């Protein structure tokens, strides 16, 4: 249809020009910054490591989003709150263990218990969400579950606030993870190492699970085509619950890792990481597990490096305030050039 093609070609052209100029500006900014040479190589390294650590947390949360999306084609807007509930409830476990002296005497066990609490609570919240808010809406037009998710997110946030209070709570320190370590030329704190290593381990386990177990195969089947999967005898309902549960477990783990890096919990803490993680999932191509992981890492590094790398060159005052602007701009850019995300499947989209 010639008319349509020309219209879209004009739009395409405009978008490419827009995207191209933003990229050019960014590249030039980076060039200027490096030329200025304010930050030393060591400092850049520190920023990159910090970005990878934070990105690992984003990746774990993003996996929850992407798994649910792959099966139900809905954004679980409340996933950030699932993350928050795990971290916040485990705070009480950690405090109790600390008061009982267990953090000092048996730190590894204490850490495992705290981690288990967070993962369990997050899993419960995720499963409850599915059962109460999402299952009745399985067939509805896409806007409806999205609104429900937004509502559920509000309910979870303010219930946490009502139950636990609006103050900021600080986790007792896991002295087990104090100090720093060197991995060859790269130095990082032990906490960062633990976060990155745990996240990688969990993601590898997840990958193996999805590809090698029956349930994993069933999950993939359901995300491919529900009808056929049902016809093959798969209990689709149960698989959906399992997916939410796994997403919850991941978010709970992410919660504890997050509190290792930033030891505060607060009823609103899930909001920003939730949005960022969802951005990461979209960046990588929503519905794609590896994409979510890579997207998370990419976003983390981008956030960490972005302002200093791209903006200080231009002499913009207080560049770090614009951290989120960079993150979202990258999202827009990626979606202009690759509307399905980096690893998104074109035909799925």
């Amino acid at each position, binding site marked *: 249809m010639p008319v349509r093609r020309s219209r879209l070609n004009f*739009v395409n052209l405009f978008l490419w020009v827009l995207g191209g100029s933003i990229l050019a500006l960014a590249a030039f900014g980076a060039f200027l910054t490096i030329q200025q040479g304010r930050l030393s190589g060591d400092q850049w390294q520190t920023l990159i490591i910090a970005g990878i650590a934070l990105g690992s947390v984003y990746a774990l949360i993003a996996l929850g989003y992407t798994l649910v999306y792959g099966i139900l084609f809905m954004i679980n807007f409340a996933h950030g709150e699932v993350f928050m509930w795990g971290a916040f409830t485990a705070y009480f476990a950690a405090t109790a263990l600390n008061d009982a002296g267990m953090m000092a005497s048996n730190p590894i066990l204490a850490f495992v218990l705290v981690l288990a609490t967070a993962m369990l609570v997050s899993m419960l919240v995720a499963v409850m969400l599915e059962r109460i808010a999402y299952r009745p809406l399985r067939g509805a037009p896409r806007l409806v579950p999205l609104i429900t998710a937004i*509502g559920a997110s*509000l309910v979870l946030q303010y219930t946490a606030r009502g139950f636990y209070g609006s103050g900021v709570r600080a986790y007792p320190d896991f002295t087990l993870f104090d100090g720093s370590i060197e991995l060859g030329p790269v130095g990082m704190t032990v906490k960062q190492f633990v976060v990155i290593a745990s996240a990688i381990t969990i993601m590898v386990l997840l990958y193996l699970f999805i590809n090698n177990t029956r349930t994993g195969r069933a999950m993939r089947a359901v995300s491919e085509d529900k009808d056929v999967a049902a016809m093959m005898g798969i209990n689709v309902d149960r698989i959906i619950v399992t997916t939410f549960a796994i997403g919850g477990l991941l978010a709970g783990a992410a919660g504890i890792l997050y509190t290792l890096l930033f030891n505060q919990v607060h009823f609103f803490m899930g909001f920003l990481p939730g949005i960022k993680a969802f951005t990461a999932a979209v960046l990588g191509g929503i519905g794609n597990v590896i994409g979510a992981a890579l997207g998370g890492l990419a976003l983390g590094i981008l956030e960490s490096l972005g302002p200093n790398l791209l903006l200080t060159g231009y002499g913009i005052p207080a560049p770090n305030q614009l951290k989120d602007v960079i993150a979202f701009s990258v999202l827009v850019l990626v979606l202009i050039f690759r509307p399905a995300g980096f690893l998104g499947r074109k035909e799925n989209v």
Partner: protein
Amino acid sequence: MDPLMRRAIITGLLGGAAVIHIGLIGMIDAFQSRDTIADVLTLGALLPILIALLIGWRSGGPMRAPHIIPTGRRAVALGALGGGTTGLVITALALFTTTIDVRWILPNASPSLAEELWYGQGTALGSVLVIVVSAAAGAAGAALHVIPGAIARALTVGGITAILVALMEPFVVAVLRNIGLRILEDLFYAQGGLTLIGFVLVFAITAAGTYAWATRGRETRERVAAMPPDRRRTGKLVVYFVLTAFLLLLPQIVGSRLSEVVGTVGLYILLGLGLNIVVGFAGLLDLGYVAFYAVGAYTTAVLTSAASPAFSPELPFFGALPFVVVAAMLIGLMVGTPVLRLRGDYLAIVTLGFGEIARILFLSAWAQPLVGGAQGILSVPPPIPFGRDPQSIYYPILFFCILAAVAAWSLQGSRVGRAWNAMREDESVAEATGINTVKYKLLAFGLGAAFGCISGALFATKIGTVFPVSFDLLVSINALALIILGGMGNIAGVIVGALVLVGLPELLREFSEFRLLIYGVVLVAMMLLRPEGLLPSRSRRAELHEREDTDEQYAETAGEETGRPVVSS
């Protein structure tokens, strides 16, 4: 066990869980300070009773599978069972808070909560009282199924109205004072709630009225329908005239404080109408609508305020307005263009990003020389010839709301509106039939932006200062929630949504702590029970409910039509 009994017990337990929830978040405690019936019933005590009533209603009602309808005494008994179970759970909660101290985790799980739950009686008497009252409430709820439909409806409407009238005490009192009916005020209200007499009167009158309308009303309705057209037209003109007079005189009737509330509602009506065009008409899910609001407010501030940092032309408000609209169109295009090829959830997250980008940019030190950064822009003058006080600013707001409503209405019925409908249903098909989706999408964003920016302009001049903190995601969510609640695509629905979601919380400001929680519950409940909103358009209702039979079967719908973000290239 008998399935009905089992359902009653399970529902009762769920009700108990609900009471535990509102107890532990501190709602019961906070609501104790508000009397529903002065000296008799506080709102905090009323809530568990209402929950028990609801549980009873559900327990005594018909069951779908297996299909049984309990009758008469059995229904009431089931209701009592459900309510009583809830009462048991409440007692357990109260016992828990008095014996085990977990206040370091849950600060609201205190003995004072138990005292409130037990109506101030001790453990033994209180427990018995709670269980009895809950069972009675449950029985009453179930009884609604048993008594004739018209009476049940009348009683329900009467009860809800009485409670609402009690809650809206500040509003009604202000109105009564303004029109000089203080005597009524003393008769009906005391200490922030209805007097016992007042409650009974309101309940009785409303119930009787509803019953009369249901039974006798039919004759009146038939007579109205049978009237000749010119009589009917006269009747309509009278209605319009009364409505007009009411709208014009509203600020005088309700007084200054409530005009303020009405003004805020008006701003959100404008926002809702604009978002309605983008989301409701064109089907483009925009979560970053606050960006337009901010642009409108800041443009106005920069152009009219003497304190504008970069350049202050100090235009009068109405002189600056054309520039605001132009800015709106530009921003609409800027936002609309990159998202042309996106759909659904991708569109949502990107627009969300734009909203956040706008807020951060307005706050940033970088843009401070132009828009004042964290300090914002002060001294925005009122819209000459109107003043800034609530009773004056009402008129410009009313004017623009009407303008917007008329514009939206005419768009809806026009070619543009039909093109939007087609696009919303299925974009690929719309393209295939020759509709220039690019043009219509951009038009939707542009118009939506215009409404949003005008609302922002009015906001700036109403408050007089513009701070970036006012433009966060919550505004976008508010706007979205109110068009969802009211009924998407329906102009009257937007107005109703704004009144409920923006007006009511303003009146119940003491409970602002729980406002967002209630929002969330309302959103979820609406989506689960009535996704087409309170006042849906007929086509929308059909759209949303044709899926209802298939909610047991997930297979057919999920994949093809609902969630996938489809890209049109």
